[in-house]
């Protein structure tokens, strides 16, 4: 008997959180598929007041700074409906993004969590996005791979370096058409180099999207005073103080 009582009691636990709100949501989750060129993705969460009392939405709290939601100022009348709009600023995010929005009303215990999912397409996957030569590492050429994601029609990459002492060379993989190789060769090591590589695919045609990689070379002390552009790492020991 005691067990039956305990069971009935604990069943209440399930009913309590579900009893809650008279705001009925059409969807608690929004799956967004922004296009490559989209700067933001907008989700709509529609609700209806199915209770017999007006309900005021007291707070709409996005889990992160990147989603903003506009709550209505007036209480929602019985039978009335409306929507919460959440704008997700894509920024430089890539891949699957999940954000939650907590909605609170003036009804006690009526928290609702809305979920916004946005699958930001990966046009190019650059790996690694950072090349680093320490002051003791020999400055040999290194390679960055750029892989085209999905079925995007990228046929060519334009790669430029912000520092003319960092040479870049791009080649398409002969076997795998969706992959490009960017070979990076620092030409001077007598001063610290911080270069940014701009990687621009030829897709989408009219609104090009830029990708970046970074190169850092710490000054190699043995070459520090060298001034001849042709100086090779081992050629100028006499110049060091």
């Amino acid at each position: 008997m005691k067990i039956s009582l305990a069971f009935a009691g604990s069943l209440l636990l399930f009913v309590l959180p579900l009893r809650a709100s008279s705001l009925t949501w059409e969807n608690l989750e929004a799956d967004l598929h922004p296009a490559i060129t989209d700067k933001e993705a907008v989700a709509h969460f529609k609700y209806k007041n199915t209770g017999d009392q007006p309900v005021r939405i007291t707070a709409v709290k996005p889990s992160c700074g990147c989603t903003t939601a506009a709550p209505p100022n007036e209480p929602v009348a019985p039978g009335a409906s409306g929507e919460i709009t959440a704008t997700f600023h894509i920024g430089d995010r890539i891949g699957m993004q999940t954000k939650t929005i907590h909605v609170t009303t003036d009804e006690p215990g009526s928290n609702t969590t809305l979920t916004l999912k946005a699958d930001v397409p990966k046009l190019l996957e650059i790996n690694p996005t950072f090349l680093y030569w320490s002051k003791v590492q020999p400055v040999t050429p290194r390679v960055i791979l750029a892989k085209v994601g999905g079925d995007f029609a990228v046929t060519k990459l334009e790669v430029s370096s912000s520092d003319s002492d960092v040479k870049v060379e791009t080649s398409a993989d002969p076997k795998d058409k969706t992959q490009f190789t960017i070979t990076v060769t620092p030409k001077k090591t007598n001063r610290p180099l911080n270069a940014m590589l701009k990687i621009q695919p030829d897709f989408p045609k009219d609104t090009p999207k830029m990708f970046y990689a970074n190169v850092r070379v710490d000054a190699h002390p043995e070459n520090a005073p060298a001034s001849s552009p042709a100086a090779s790492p081992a050629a100028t020991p006499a110049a060091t103080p």
Partner: protein
Amino acid sequence: MRGVLRQAVLLIGLAFLPAIGQALYFRGNPAVLAKPADAHEVTLAEAKGWGQSVLWLDARPHEEFDSGHVPGALSLNEDDWNGLLPAVLATWKPAGKVVVYCSRKSCNASHGVAERLRNEAGLKNVYVLPGGWEEWEENAHR
């Protein structure tokens, strides 16, 4: 009623047998001894103990960064990843440690930033301060 209790205890006991067996099989596995994510999470005291060798990164949106951040911290968030990353990489010390934080325990921007630094930029020694800016501030006033 007694019978139910006896059965429950018996079931609880029965489950221990394979569990202990499996635990023995995993014994000595280093992943069991420490939380795997722990390798990437750091307490505030520990991070402060690292002193000057730490590069603090603020993963919050830039308005929040502007209104206050850990002294010396650089801003790096995914809103403007490409724009902010170069300054971070130019400042980064290869032998040092990187600690990323966001607003509070429930935010996960810091984990996202730390992951991209590890996976895309290939940095090592990237840690997350789980308590975030909230924890830092609480301790600053103490």
